[in-house]
């Protein structure tokens, strides 16, 4: 195995991100080849975490752009600070500066509000990690705009000219697959698919991240969550849900699972009314034992 990949795996584990070879290899390649990394997978498998841990690993700043429908260049790139601009014009009313001079001042960096993408490009010092989160939520126009930024790492602001990145940021894009991303965007990125973790891996995650959790309880929690992912549910629990649940059970001083305590804490890992009823039926059918001892 490449030493650098092993090092990434070690460092990620030290940051309490339980990783595997595919993840470490992709993260390494993204930094080594300088290509954006597109991370796909079910909600709650730790896609966003990768960017955070990567920033820590590299000792770089993390700049995050959360995507949503209707997100446009203005909100993602830059905006002018209108209030300050207007104030500046008012204060300078008596000045004799020409209109061209006034305009040059008004549209200078002092009045520029940098949004995440511009912040990432103009960042000084160590190149930051740029996280473009849930890119599938944005629309096609924005995706096309991203392509431009991701290939050149430069933007043109009409009033200021072209701004080029001194050093390319490391880019991580995540997608929940609510929408198919364009072929062009996919092909510009390295691709990483994160599946739900195996029983063993999830057990390690739960035990690493939730202190004070007994061995038996950790196994039972992991077993139930893993079994739930095999059931037909509207919303399957992710790793975040297992962790929430484990933390809640620790707070309740539970040391093993019984039907009563599961019923009380179901809200930690089920987020849908229909799923609640399905779980309730399972409990009444006495399926808890089998679920809790699930191991792969």
């Amino acid at each position, binding site marked *: *195995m*490449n030493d*650098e*990949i092993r090092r990434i795996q070690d460092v990620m584990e030290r940051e309490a991100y339980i990783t595997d*070879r*595919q993840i470490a*290899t*992709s993260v*390494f*390649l993204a930094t*080594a*080849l300088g*290509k954006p990394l*597109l991370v*796909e997978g079910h909600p709650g498998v730790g896609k966003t975490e990768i960017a955070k841990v990567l920033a820590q690993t590299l000792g770089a700043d993390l700049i995050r752009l959360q995507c949503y*429908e*209707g997100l*446009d260049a*203005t909100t993602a790139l830059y*905006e*002018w600070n*209108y209030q300050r*601009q*207007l104030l500046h*014009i*008012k204060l*300078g*009313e008596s000045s004799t500066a020409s*209109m061209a001079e*006034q*305009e040059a001042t*008004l549209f200078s960096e002092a009045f520029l509000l940098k949004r995440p993408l511009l912040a990432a490009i103009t960042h000084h010092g160590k190149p930051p990690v740029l996280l473009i989160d849930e890119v599938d939520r944005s*629309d*096609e*126009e924005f995706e096309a705009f991203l392509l431009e930024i991701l290939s050149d790492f430069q933007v043109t602001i009409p009033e200021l000219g072209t701004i080029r990145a001194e050093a390319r940021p490391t880019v991580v894009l995540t997608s929940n*697959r609510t*929408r*198919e991303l364009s*072929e062009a965007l*996919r*092909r510009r*990125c*390295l*691709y*990483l*698919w994160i599946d739900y973790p195996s029983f063993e891996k999830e057990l390690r995650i739960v035990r690493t991240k939730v202190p004070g959790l007994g061995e038996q309880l950790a196994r039972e929690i992991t077993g139930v969550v893993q079994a739930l992912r095999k059931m037909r549910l509207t919303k399957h629990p992710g790793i975040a849900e297992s962790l929430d649940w484990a933390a809640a059970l620790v707070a309740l001083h539970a040391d093993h699972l019984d039907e009563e305590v599961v019923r009380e804490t179901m809200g930690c890992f089920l987020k849908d009314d229909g799923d609640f009823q399905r779980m309730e039926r399972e409990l009444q059918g006495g399926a808890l034992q089998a679920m809790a001892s699930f191991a792969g």
Partner: protein
Amino acid sequence: MPDERAVAHAPGDTAPADLLAAVVTLCRTLRDRGIVATPAESIDGVRALGVVDIADRDEVRLALRSVLIHRREDFDAFDEAFREVWSIERGLPAPIPLPGPRREMVKPPAPAPARPPTVSLQNWMKPSDGDAGDSITVRAASDNESLVARDFSHYAAEDDEAFRALARRIARRLSLRRSRRWKASRRGRRIDLRRTVRASLRTGGNPIALERRVRKVRRTSLVALCDVSGSMELYARFLLQFLHALQNTFARVETFAFATRLSRLTPLLRGVRYRESLRDLGREVQDFSGGTRIGASIRGFLDRYPKLVDRRTIVVILSDGWDVGDPALLSDAMQALHRRSGRVIWLNPLMGGADFTPDTRGMQAALPHIDLLAPGHNLEALQRLIRHLAL
């Protein structure tokens, strides 16, 4: 056509020749399996191999996979191709003779669908005197077929004012959606600060003229895929009349019919009376009243008309879900359709029956990839649909 020879020059100095050959062969094998792997991918593949431990077979596989493959669905095909191309024993790629011209994809001949004994389209075109519905044999293997049939057997083909009214309401609903994006406008309610400040420069910073902006109108479009197989005989007549009305009211609608194959009906329905449309349909659509292969039809739709579906498209499938095709194919096609469209609505005429459960194989396979399953057996059911036609 871009060729692998172009690649050989680019990274050739840093990578051993047999490694290069292996990556190129791998990309070729992937292309044979329908995966886009261009010279750009080959170059990245070789670059990746320059930085990982090439004696470690698994690492090589993982690295090449994240470089060459861009979606989860292609992982299996990649792993298979990798097994073929990379020699197992040494971890290192074996010297591989470059294969000859690209293999042709050989498609297995489609099995001829069994034609059920049903009436032809000719029956539809008889003067509708209201009793046609009673005399037609329906292939639907459902207990409540006669009940559902009665739902609309008394609709006369000419009397389509009700359909037109419904189509108008749907068109209005689809046209009024506002996008979250803004555009400049003289009469908007919101002030556009950017342009206002710009304009105020001319007047010494006094914003005399306020610039305004409005929400852009979102262009929602509709694609209807209508099952015209034997089991849908009666419903299809009714649903096509509805689609005909819609087609002539709303510009951004596309209509398709399918049974074993897919036919585009849009030009046949547009601008002519329903009765004339029917005559053309009978000529153009060969497989009316045949068996159903929903999965293959939807896949065919996605392949042949990829531009018709995006996030602003509502796809309406009108079918009873009786499918003689492969359920896995149906499931895959539905998943692809669902991911690419804004909303997938399945109208199932059998849902009009009291004891309907979506338990046919086809319905089961499609169910996870549908946003809404609703009845479509009468006009009232279609009217109720309106409030779901929003993105």
